[in-house]
């Protein structure tokens, strides 16, 4: 009797897990299937299985590399722009944010009534700011400084967007690293900056990886500033794909470009899961 109940329970459990897993992968599978279709696989109604329901072609994928003048998407440019902007901004944010987080974790700051936790909160609270509000001053300021529609302009904006995330993850991480480690380094004759670089940073691999991966996810996926602050000289990946959508680009090239743009992120997800499973996120959200 009891065995039957356990079986029923684990059946329900796996049922639920599988249903959610199917829901999660469904859009990817649909896009994958669509990316190999041609006209007859799309305009006749929904089809799913290649060879059986439609004759697969590589047209959708080939269009990614063709020039826009010959009906292609020419995705290399946006891909490169997204790569440059997200890697550089993630790197800068990681460097500045890690330094700040170490400072906030190890020293006491006072500015009037404000102390460390207020400063940390000040950093993190920047996430509340909707991009739509900052769009106006950014547009005007970048226009004024001649940085509108340049890599540097976008990188500046992205660094500000990523800093709170790095500070949030790293303050918590440094708090779990014992201060004895710093003190031992200082007794060996390091100044705090040397201690930070030689002793603390090498011991913070997992925290840095999680913060770095989150930065890459957020910057690679950023849409609003990419749309409003770059348009001609610099074209970022997400707006390029969304604009295809309104330009009546066929579904197969649309699906292929969407998949090509999210593949790096799926790989990032794989690493993120490995590092998160070491359980270094729990403290981060506990108030």
């Amino acid at each position, binding site marked *: 009797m009891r065995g039957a109940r356990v079986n029923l329970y684990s059946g329900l459990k796996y049922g639920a897990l599988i249903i959610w897993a199917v829901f999660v992968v469904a*859009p990817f599978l649909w896009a994958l299937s669509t990316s190999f279709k041609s006209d007859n696989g799309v305009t006749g109604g929904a089809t799913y299985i290649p060879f059986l329901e439609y004759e697969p072609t590589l047209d959708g994928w080939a269009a990614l590399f063709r020039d826009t003048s010959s009906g292609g998407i020419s995705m290399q440019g946006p891909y490169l722009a997204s790569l440059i902007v997200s890697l550089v901004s993630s790197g800068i944010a990681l460097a500045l944010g890690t330094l700040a987080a170490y400072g906030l974790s190890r*020293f006491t700051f006072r500015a009037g009534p404000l102390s460390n936790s207020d400063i940390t909160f000040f950093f993190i609270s920047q996430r509340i700011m909707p*991009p739509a509000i900052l769009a*106006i001053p950014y547009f005007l300021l970048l226009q004024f400084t001649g940085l509108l529609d340049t890599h540097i302009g976008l990188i500046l904006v992205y660094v500000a967007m990523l800093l709170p995330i790095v500070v949030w993850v790293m303050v918590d991480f440094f708090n779990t690293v014992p201060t004895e480690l710093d003190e031992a380094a200082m007794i060996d004759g390091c100044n705090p900056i040397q201690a930070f670089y030689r002793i603390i940073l090498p011991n913070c691999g997992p925290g840095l990886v999680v913060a770095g991966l989150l930065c890459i996810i957020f910057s690679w*996926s950023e849409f609003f500033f990419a749309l409003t602050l770059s348009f001609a000289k610099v074209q970022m990946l997400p707006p390029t794909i969304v604009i295809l959508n309104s330009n009546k680009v066929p579904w197969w090239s*649309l699906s292929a470009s*969407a998949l090509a743009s*999210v593949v790096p992120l799926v790989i990032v997800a794989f690493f993120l899961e490995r590092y*998160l499973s070491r359980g270094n996120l729990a403290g981060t959200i506990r108030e």
Partner: protein
Amino acid sequence: MIDSRYKHIFLFPALLVLVAIIIFPLIYTVRLSFSGWDINRPGLDSVGWSNYARAFVDGGFWNSMGTLYQMVFFCVLFEYTLGFGLALLLWKQVKAGRFFRLLFIIPMCVTPVVMAVVWKTIFHETLGPLNDILSWFGISGVPWLSEATPAFISIILVDVWQWTSLMFILLLAGLMSLPKEPYEAAQIDGAGPIRTFVHVTFPLMAPITIGALVIRLIESSKLMETIYAMTSAGPGSATETTSYLLYIRSLREFQIGYTASLSIIYLVIMIIALALFAKLLSRALIGRSEART
């Protein structure tokens, strides 16, 4: 104690960047909100409080706020419930647990706006797979993106697909950090799984629940990308959120001064609402769990 002469070297670069890139633009926005800057009269003149007076009777703006609150409510409710459910299923040792966990965090990692483009093809009324699959069950021709209520539901569905994963991973991390002793005590008392959840797990998870809900509320209040890609706020303005409206009014219609005033009003309301919500939530959840123990 570590030599504190060096402390400013650590903190100040980041603080400077933040002030330069967020605080200064925000102050500039406040200044803009008192100007009549628009497409015909670009420039920082002064029009007093007239933008604010106009904002308070702007039906479109307040409607967008209403739409936003409804959407955020349903999104966060479903995401929390589903995310908690999935986290509970994968909390204890489970066969293929890591496989499921990897799958379940993928949605939060992929570009929302790009996935929204894919979802738009899924919701297509005649060529999309969703209506095709529904037709196997005798439901046909749901106007997913062309009528108000279905469009509202589609946006929520896509948001739930994307962000349940974040709730899941935050709550799972929380569950794995819980202490063992209360569970041993509950077992000795002979409490079943449901009573254990209600009296042990849920109260212990209260701080993490609050953290996860607040994070998700903050992020979901910026909802606009999915809408941009899927419905363009339509049909009519049925799915217009405040962020979308601010974008159209400012950088499409170039009503810079007026939109700046809307932005400031919106920001003040958001901060008050979030602070109030966080306070009420912690009183409801933590207050109660303390009363129990």
